């Protein structure tokens, strides 16, 4: 049986820090390591105290190995090891122990010392070998540590790439949806224009016929008059449906200018005033003073306001009050469901013009709330609703780079909130 021995002669010279307060042992150890055994001479620096050892920190030539006696004049036991280890994190440590220190020595091994050496068994060849192994282990440990760190950096970079990939993918999906939506709109638009033409011609004929009879029907002919009025109203309603359908699919570009909101609200109100009176509903307006101008297409925004006010009115049935409030504010996270992803119209911190229209109606049932923006979805079919009103409103607001949210209020009723960019911000972003 053959035992392989460590070939000190082939190894490179070690730079050793010897921390030992006992002069006899110090001398002996120095001798062991500096003895020329046919190879290169190791270099030993001695320190008698912890403080003296720590002073060796930052020397230009780093130590390969520290031989460490734990019990020094200025430090005892495990503390000595801890101090040295944190001062020389990249140096191999072999702890020198007396027989009673075995437990502490085991502890230092667990905490990163490469080996320990009982002082009783000073056997030069073996000690040198232990130290060589210790240095080698430390070197591998450090290489491993560096490799690990690099691996971790790579992993982080990979995760980052993955994250940005996910984001691109999300953006791509959103863009795709927008494209699909635009394509759908285009088809609907062409369809609507075609249908409009085909339907308007017969409507025109019915109108001409009805109007003819209106002209010549005797004043006392009540039933006949009722018939004609109903037909006339039906023609008007059919015409309105077609108009809304065309509005909905209209791809016409916006004519955007800085506008004050108050006059727009007044004008919209003018169109729905009759309905307010008919339903004996009050209208209350709270406009914030010095509201900045909004960047909007006047006509389209009027349409938005008319539609939202009409919705509020219809929710109200009759009586009560509809509130319209405007304000200028900085968005706080969590108050409104504004997004924080790239591509969202607003993120917390943005300054926005906010317009709320609140009714005192019964609110929107949960199963309906998710569908209110779907084209052709309506709960008012019997009253002539087309299900396009809110879709049109949402489209218009989104074309403005704005945001629309409709939600049930905790106090009851519904609140429609429109966020618009102030003229300054819109110009800046353009």
């Amino acid at each position, binding site marked *: 049986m053959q035992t392989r021995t460590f070939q000190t002669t082939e190894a490179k010279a070690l730079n050793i820090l010897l921390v030992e307060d006992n002069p006899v042992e110090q001398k002996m150890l120095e001798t062991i390591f500096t003895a020329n055994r046919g190879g290169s001479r190791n270099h030993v620096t001695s320190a008698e105290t912890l403080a003296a050892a720590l002073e060796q920190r930052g020397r230009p030539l780093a130590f390969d190995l520290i031989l460490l006696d734990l019990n020094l004049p200025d430090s005892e036991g495990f503390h000595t090891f801890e101090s040295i280890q944190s001062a020389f994190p990249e140096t191999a440590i072999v702890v020198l122990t007396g027989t009673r220190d075995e437990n502490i020595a085991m502890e230092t091994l667990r905490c990163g010392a490469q080996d320990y050496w009982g002082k009783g068994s000073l056997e030069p060849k073996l000690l040198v070998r232990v130290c060589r192994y210790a240095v080698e282990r430390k070197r591998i440990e450090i290489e491993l540590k560096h490799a690990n760190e690099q691996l971790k950096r790579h992993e982080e970079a990979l995760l980052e790439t993955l994250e940005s990939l996910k984001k691109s993918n999300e953006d791509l999906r959103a863009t795709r949806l927008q494209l699909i939506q635009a394509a759908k709109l285009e088809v609907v638009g062409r369809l609507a224009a075609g249908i*409009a*033409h085909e339907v308007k011609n017969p409507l*025109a*004929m*019915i109108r*001409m016929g009805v*109007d*003819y009879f209106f*002209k*010549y029907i005797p004043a006392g002919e009540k039933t006949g008059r009722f018939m004609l009025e109903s037909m006339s109203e039906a023609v008007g309603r059919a015409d309105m449906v077609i108009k809304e359908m065309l509005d909905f699919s209209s791809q016409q570009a916006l004519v955007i200018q800085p506008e004050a909101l108050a006059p727009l609200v007044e004008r919209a109100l003018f169109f729905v005033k009759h309905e307010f009176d008919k339903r004996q509903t009050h209208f209350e307006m709270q406009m914030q003073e010095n509201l900045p101008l909004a960047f909007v297409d006047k006509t389209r925004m009027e349409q938005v306001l008319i539609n939202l006010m009409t919705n509020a009115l219809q929710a109200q049935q009759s009586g009560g009050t509809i509130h319209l409030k405007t304000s200028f504010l900085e968005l706080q996270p969590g108050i409104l469901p504004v997004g924080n992803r790239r591509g969202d119209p607003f993120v917390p911190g943005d300054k926005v013009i906010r317009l709320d229209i609140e009714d005192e109606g019964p609110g929107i049932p949960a199963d309906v709330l998710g569908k209110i923006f779907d084209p052709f979805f309506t709960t008012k079919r019997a009253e002539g609703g087309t299900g396009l009103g809110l879709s049109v409103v949402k489209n218009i607001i989104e074309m403005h780079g704005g945001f629309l949210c409709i939600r049930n209020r905790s106090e009851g009723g519904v609140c429609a909130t429109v966020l618009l960019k102030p003229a300054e911000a819109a110009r800046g972003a353009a």
Partner: protein
Amino acid sequence: MAQRKKILIVDDEKQFGEMIKINLETEGDYEVCVETRGRQALDTARRFNPDLILLDIIMPDKSGYDVARDFSLDTQLRAKPFIYLTALSKPEVLLRESERKNIAYLAKPVSRECLLEAIRLQMSAHPGGG
């Protein structure tokens, strides 16, 4: 008493033309001629010599735009006031020919009252048509 004003209707929907004719003639002041073929519109107009033309835009054989262009190149008809009466919701005419003052536009379905008013306005604005 002035002579009855003459109105030419060019619309491929024969019944619609006839209904307008009835409505206008029963109003008393008008003599109405209906032409359903776009290609015949110029000839008919030359013969009939209307004071005003009601012109459909989408017609199978010739568009109202082309008919109007023929009219604008004809010395007899050039100055006649006319009204596009169309089911198109956004006729290009509003952009294309808005500089020509003798052109008006009405969207179908139009009410009898509105039609009569538009005819009166166009005629009084362009009396040279007759």
